[in-house]
């Protein structure tokens, strides 16, 4: 048993729903009790879908357990076919129905429906949402893409695989990647699952190669297509300027087109903005990154190489991609955190003392409690992660979005310099509210909040002079200075923190 306050991923049938809801002409019959229908609201409320997900739940009850839950499944599947007339159906069980062992696969086969019915085995007590999405997409592709390769395949043609419903910015990434491919002169044959019909999956073999946007969802399907249809695939995530450039080069090479015109185009503002002198203050900012594998790895790369941060923590809840995340962490000289335990992530962030957290909605809460700025870079999805505006993570526009996303939570650089320069100014020091707000003294709350949760361990005593000296440190780094000094003192078992200790600690930590 695992104690869980928040979960990063839902159960695997939610992954199947993300695929089914993204597609058209597909229906999902899910053997599940009534409570599982909550999943509808993920799509209708978080993603604001204007239609119910194409899912029929059997909603069996306790009184049915003694009689015939299998019969309920058969009736539900038959009724769903009659009502929705889908091109294909997927059938399976959620966690409770899995325990009943009613065999949705056999039951639906017995119905003899005149459409492909694809049974899903999604072990709810072992696997999670992204695995479920990947397995569902793989099963669909395996069943619906004919084994015989298409005779005619234009070289400059590809499929885009991976975008789903309730995926982090999938809608906007797709538009961006379609644009890049269009500019390169590469035709997009099929996009799947998002927007595809089962019939479209039958046409997958007509493209020369596949573009995998999210390996969490589409790697298995792409590997199968490579093996059976001889389609190579590109898995380079076009996130950040470097990632996007590498992606363009990779697809251009497979398609036999010249990448130069696109690479010499407008590009991203990120490159210049990062070089602009006001970005100097970003240098070496300590950043902690956590999310799904694709977004965490990409965010770490962009943070370190394109913005000049120091990555002090990198982790993922995607255990299936632990190897990739560990390799990326090694490049930053750190060890990856592979866990889906929210409490372990919280402890790791507190220990790393980052100045910025790039994480999920969960890390946003952790960061808020620790008083650290945070930006959200990955699912699980929140209604805020489905903005009205175009806000991709991928492509050059995605790089622009990332620059803003990573930098805005931090205090702007020039502002920071000015604050330091004028910190003793009677109208400007940190104990006074801004003059346009009346300039009354303000409470010391902010810095106390920053320091308190982290330093709960051993009490250390500050001398009055040292406290006074600490107050001269700009308030936005004071929490960190306090923490570092106390840690320094504790490690050396110093009974009292003096002004000397403060500067010894400063020297020690600025190595």
């Amino acid at each position, binding site marked *: 048993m*695992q104690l*869980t306050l*928040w979960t990063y991923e839902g159960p695997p049938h939610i992954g199947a729903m993300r695929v089914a809801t993204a597609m058209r002409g597909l229906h999902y019959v899910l053997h599940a009790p*009534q409570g*599982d229908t909550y999943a509808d609201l993920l799509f209708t409320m978080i993603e604001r879908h204007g239609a119910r997900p194409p899912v029929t739940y059997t909603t069996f009850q306790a009184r049915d357990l003694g009689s015939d839950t299998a019969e309920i499944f058969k009736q539900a599947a038959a009724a769903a076919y009659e009502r929705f007339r889908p091109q294909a159906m997927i059938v399976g069980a959620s966690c409770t129905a899995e325990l*009943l062992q009613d065999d949705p696969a056999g039951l639906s086969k017995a119905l003899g429906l005149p459409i492909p019915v694809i049974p899903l085995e999604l072990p709810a*007590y072992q696997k999670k949402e992204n695995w479920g999405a990947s397995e569902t997409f793989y099963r669909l592709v395996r069943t619906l893409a004919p084994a015989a390769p298409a005779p005619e395949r234009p070289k400059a043609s590809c499929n885009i695989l991976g975008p789903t419903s309730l995926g982090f910015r999938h809608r906007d990434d797709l538009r961006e990647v379609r644009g890049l491919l269009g500019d390169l002169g590469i035709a997009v044959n099929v996009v799947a699952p998002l927007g595809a019909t089962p019939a479209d999956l039958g046409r997958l073999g007509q493209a020369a190669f596949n573009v995998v946007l999210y390996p969490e969802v589409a790697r298995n399907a792409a590997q199968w297509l490579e093996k059976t249809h001889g389609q190579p695939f590109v898995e380079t995530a076009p996130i950040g300027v470097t990632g996007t450039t590498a992606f363009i080069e990779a697809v251009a090479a497979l398609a036999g087109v010249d990448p130069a015109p696109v690479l010499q185009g407008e590009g991203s503002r990120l490159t210049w903005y990062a070089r602009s002198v006001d970005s100097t203050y970003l240098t070496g900012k300590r950043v902690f990154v956590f999310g799904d594998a694709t977004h965490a790895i990409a965010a770490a790369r962009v943070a370190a190489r394109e913005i000049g941060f120091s990555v002090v923590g990198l982790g993922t809840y995607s255990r299936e991609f632990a190897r990739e995340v560990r390799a990326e962490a090694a490049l930053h000289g750190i060890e990856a955190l592979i866990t889906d335990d929210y409490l372990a992530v919280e402890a790791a962030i507190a220990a790393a003392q980052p100045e910025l957290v790039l994480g999920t909605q969960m890390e946003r809460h952790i960061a808020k409690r620790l008083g650290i700025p945070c930006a959200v870079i990955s699912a699980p999805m929140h209604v805020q992660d489905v903005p009205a505006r175009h806000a991709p993570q991928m492509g050059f526009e995605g790089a622009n979005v990332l620059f803003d996303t990573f930098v805005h939570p931090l205090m702007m650089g020039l502002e920071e310099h000015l604050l330091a320069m004028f910190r003793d100014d009677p109208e400007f020091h940190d104990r006074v509210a801004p003059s346009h707000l009346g300039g009354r003294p303000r409470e010391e709350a902010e810095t106390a909040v920053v320091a308190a949760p982290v330093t709960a361990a051993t009490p250390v005593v500050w001398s009055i002079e040292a406290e006074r000296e600490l107050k001269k440190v700009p308030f936005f780094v004071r929490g960190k200075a306090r923490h570092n000094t106390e840690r320094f003192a504790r490690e050396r078992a110093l009974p009292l923190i003096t002004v000397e200790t403060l500067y010894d600690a400063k020297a020690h930590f600025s190595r």
Partner: protein
Amino acid sequence: MTALASPLPSAVPCGPEIRHERGQRAVFCGLTGIVWLHRKIQDAFFLVVGSRTCAHLIQSAAGVMIFAEPRFATAIIEERDLAGLADAHEELDRVVRRLLERRPDIKLLFLVGSCPSEVIKLDLGRAAARLSGTFAPDVRVLSYSGSGIETTFTQGEDACLAALVPDLPHSNDESLLVVGALADVVEDQFSRLFADLGIADVRFLPGRRAADRAPIGPKTRYLLAQPFLTDTARALEDRGATRIPAPFPLGAEGTTLWLAAAARAFGISPARLAAVTEAGRTRAARALQAHRASLSGRRVFFFPDSQLEVPLARFLSREMGAELIEVGTPYLHRGHLADDLALLPDGTRVTEGQSLDDQLDRCRAARPDLTVCGLGLANPLEAEDLATKWSIELLFTPIQGYEQAGDLAGLFTRPLARRARLEG
């Protein structure tokens, strides 16, 4: 409505037309109640023993992650727990120990059963007794089932309160127990009204803190504040308490009839009741007046959700002049709802249970002016240009009593007013 409502009809001559429906349901399971129960009992922790789905449900229903350090969590059953039950109990002990070490402020721990824990027959009652022994006297451990195969949405509160009843101390004194989670502000208003009526000993279930346990016994009379408390009522009657039949305190009329029932039971004169409630009735009438124009004559369709549907329909039809197309409810307790059912217009279509797609067909065909439904259905219906009120808000918002009557009406008029603005 400043005058007292007319006395209730003694029998139902024609009454509503009640039908049953079976099929696909679109409702939450009883685990959802944790979302408001953990706010109500301020030192209680709710540990669901269930699957990843359970954890995901609560997180999604809880306003999508609003509480950074919630007082609820899930002990997720994994493959190896399914291998042997003895192991599952040891695992549960380990999880509870870790939890209570982290949260020394917790005084009452609920082990909440789920669909998978029911199906594998994990005995949480036994686990609760064992853990209570371990952690007494600092923490009491109780158990109930919020499983979706046994409970629908608000029935989770019923199961939780029923679990509290055997734990209440005994008393032979005359007392009034108000049963059902109410917002603190509503409780305080009712407390003042009962005090003014002259009912001395009034307690609420659940209490605001674990230690706040109302004594009950054969002279306890209880008044249900929520219509979904079947098991709780049975448990209270097992302890000798007797129910005061009444409509539910929604709207001015509902509140008056509810208070009147208590007054009658405690031998308080109608004159006293009229005097005590006058200010509240006047304010409620004024507040409701503002909303009546926009609800009068509006055609309303209820999908089954919270079991509040029947009293809400009664309020909308009698106090707001709305027309009821269909009143869906997941489960209908004919005894507890008798007084509300009797006040529905003759021939009102009440549907118990659900067949989702058929009901959606009926709703689309009727094109109601306002549809009260769960969160999963609201946006799809809005996209079909049907105004909706999502019903979970009716559980989170204080709606009972005189001072909230206007707010209750406002929950129904807001979607209409909003559409008018956006079309404006």
